[in-house]
């Protein structure tokens, strides 16, 4: 961690957040908020949290800003002038100041920032750092804890993405749109006849394969470098988002249809949970990957953990990819799945 960067960046972050709440033009606010997540990514890299930074880079820069822009696109951009509502402002400032006071009081009680001897850095985390290499043979401790020691959390985290996409898809899709969507399954759409600018089309067309290749690298190389299923999945989803911005949603659906998307959403989580279930059937506890060595005796229990983690990451990536794309298509086309942003 580098304290000089940290102080400068955090000051910028606070200013940026404040301004994005302050300005009256929603589009501007959303774009400033994009800068907020860029800076947050740098803050986390500065503190050595590379996986979190990668996730923030993928989510903040790639996806959540686009969600905001899509919402502003389909609603209104202007903020209506409100009368100065004294009681609400007074009430909420009292609450905020009270909360701030409470939190500030407790700060004096914390171990200093960056103290290597604090309880957080010693109790459980120390065990992971010292034993993960022996028990799983995965150098990236974040991946091994994410996909093995606390795999149950990660399974439900993937479940959250599934639930969110299902909720958004169900609620935005109108009943007439639903019938049209089912009819249009896998029909042939010409990729030549599009209205978008040539530059965007060509540039995005060139970018997309490289992005997908890079995403696959991130997924499978998560054991040795920052990254893993979630980050790779978001980048894969972002490549599809890019494609559907360069052409339109219908043309992407010709290759990757809605039906398929909903299925792959569920299949991703099912791969994860299914591996856990196989372990249970083979006589271990749920998600105890070492039980898989009964199925493949040539792998020891450590090797089977290593491999099972890889497959789990693939499942996560599948769900996250289709989840991000499903959320984008629903939000950007307001549930019509035709033109998009």
């Amino acid at each position, binding site marked *: 961690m580098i304290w000089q960067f940290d102080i400068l960046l955090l000051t910028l972050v606070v200013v940026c957040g404040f301004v994005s709440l302050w300005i009256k033009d929603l589009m501007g606010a959303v774009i400033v908020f994009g800068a907020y997540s860029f800076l947050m990514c740098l803050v986390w890299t500065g503190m050595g949290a590379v996986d979190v930074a990668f996730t923030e880079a993928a989510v903040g820069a790639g996806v959540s800003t686009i969600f905001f822009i899509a919402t502003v696109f389909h609603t209104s951009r202007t903020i209506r002038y409100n009368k100065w509502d004294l009681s609400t402002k007074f009430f909420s400032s009292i609450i905020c100041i009270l909360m701030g006071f409470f939190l500030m009081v407790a700060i004096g009680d914390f171990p200093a920032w960056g103290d290597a001897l604090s309880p957080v850095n010693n109790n459980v985390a120390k065990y992971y750092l010292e034993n993960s290499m022996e028990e799983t043979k995965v150098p990236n401790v974040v991946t091994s804890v994410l996909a093995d*020691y606390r795999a149950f959390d990660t399974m439900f985290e993937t479940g959250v993405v599934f639930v969110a996409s299902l909720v958004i898809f169900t609620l935005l899709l109108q009943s007439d749109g639903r019938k049209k969507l089912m009819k249009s399954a896998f029909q042939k759409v010409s990729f030549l006849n599009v209205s978008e600018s040539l530059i965007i089309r060509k540039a995005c067309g060139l970018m997309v394969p490289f992005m997908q290749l890079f995403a696959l690298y991130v997924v499978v190389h998560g054991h040795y470098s920052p990254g893993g299923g979630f980050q790779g999945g978001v980048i894969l989803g972002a490549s599809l988002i890019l494609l559907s911005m360069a052409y339109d949603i219908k043309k992407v659906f010709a290759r990757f249809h809605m039906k398929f998307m909903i299925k792959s959403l569920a299949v991703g989580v099912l791969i994860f949970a299914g591996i856990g279930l196989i372990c249970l059937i083979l006589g271990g506890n749920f998600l105890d990957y070492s039980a898989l060595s009964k199925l493949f005796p040539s792998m020891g229990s450590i090797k089977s953990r290593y491999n099972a983690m890889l497959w789990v990451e693939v499942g996560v990536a599948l769900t996250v990819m289709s989840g991000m794309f499903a959320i984008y298509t629903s939000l950007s086309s307001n549930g019509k799945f035709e033109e998009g942003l």
Partner: protein
Amino acid sequence: MADQFLVLIVLFPLFVGLLIPIIAYFNKSVVWPLAILSLIGSFWAVFNTATQLLKLDPSSSISYYLGNWMAPFGIEYVVDRFNIMVLFAIICVSLLTTIFAKQVIEKELGDNAANFYSLFLLFITGLLGITITGDAFNLYVLLEIASLTSYGLIALGRGRALVATFNYLIMGSMGACFYLLGVGYLFIKTGTLNMDQLYDVLPLLFDSKAVLVGFVFIILGMWVKMAFFPLHSWLPNAYSLAPTAAACLMAPLMTKVSVYVMIRFMLNVFSTEYVYSVLTINNIIVIMSSIAIIAGSIYALSQKNLKKMLTFIIVAEIGYMVGGVWTGHVDGIRGAIYHITADAFMTLCLFMAVGCIVYRVGNDKLESLKGIFKKMPITMICFLVGGFSVIGIPPTCGFFSKWYLISGAFNSGAWYFIIALIISSLINAVLFFRIIEIGFFGAMSNEKPDYKSLQSIKFNEVPINMWLPLVIVSMILIILGIYTNEIMTNFILNIVPMM
């Protein structure tokens, strides 16, 4: 197999919930039976866990290590005599609701039915997980699963449901974030997330300010989630506008599970010593809950809409439980714990009955209930059993929980809480007798009864899979009441440490 039951409780609804979107593309008619099968499987697992648990020593618990990593390093599932009761309540309520809900879902949701079932099962998974987990962060993730699904379920409702859902989303995320922040304050002082280990480590840190702030924020987060009185604003609209099936599931369970989490943290993470001796805020919170009870009852009295009235009764009931726990007397805590189970079934009974009425009558305004006793006798008798239980009339379980709560308040000298309980019971009596008056005698007070129109009303009961669960729930209410003593000695006595 015998030692895997704990995880199977969660796995059945999880897998079926994930499979339903795929299966629905091939055959929509198997979705409902599948959902019921998965819940029966889960019920079977809960039942087996309970039989295992009852063979053991009363104060012991069963642990399950996910991924076979020992407790502070992996995630632990724990079942003891406290949460086995809550698990039973959750699984019974969700099973009965699912059986009940078939026609209602088809009528209200049409095309969205399959996705609705998927969200429904994942919501149940979240609640079961919250109840059973022994890890503070795992609880947050499951809380978010339950919240996200409930946003989706409520937003599928009619009319202003969208705006209600948005308010719920803002408040709910705030509550979950407060919880996460509180856990962070404990984590920075202890370095562990496992509840058992926190219980062992925290007594050394009782004078630390960070632990105090952590405790306050965890309790505050749970108060937002359970709609404790000043923070209740999201609940009435959200639950009264949700689809009937979703309301039947959510109203009994979501708030009660939050109360469970609060009590869990008070008893099994922070000790009773910390909550009642080191902190001296008992009286303030009991006064707050007295206000909550009275305010909830008065709001309920002013409603003209049956569902809205019931939602305000829920707000008052939350006051019972919070106040009972914070009286700091053993009887009060026991009463509150017993009331979690009892209230889940009471609320279920009332909401199901209202669901039946809406299914036949078409709306839930009080005026349209004229002559309802003749038209739907079974539904209305069950509704009355639920109502009597809320009022607290002896053979039903509501009486016994109220009795324990009053005894706890009496022993700790909280007379205002007793007054609030009595006032609330009286108001509830007024509420339900008003419904009896309208439904049985068929007229508002100053209107002459129109006998001819009453004669023409025909017997028109709901289908059997709707009234049968309702009858079962009202039987459960009476059975719980009769066996109160057994439940107390077998389950609740051992969880609350003597003070």
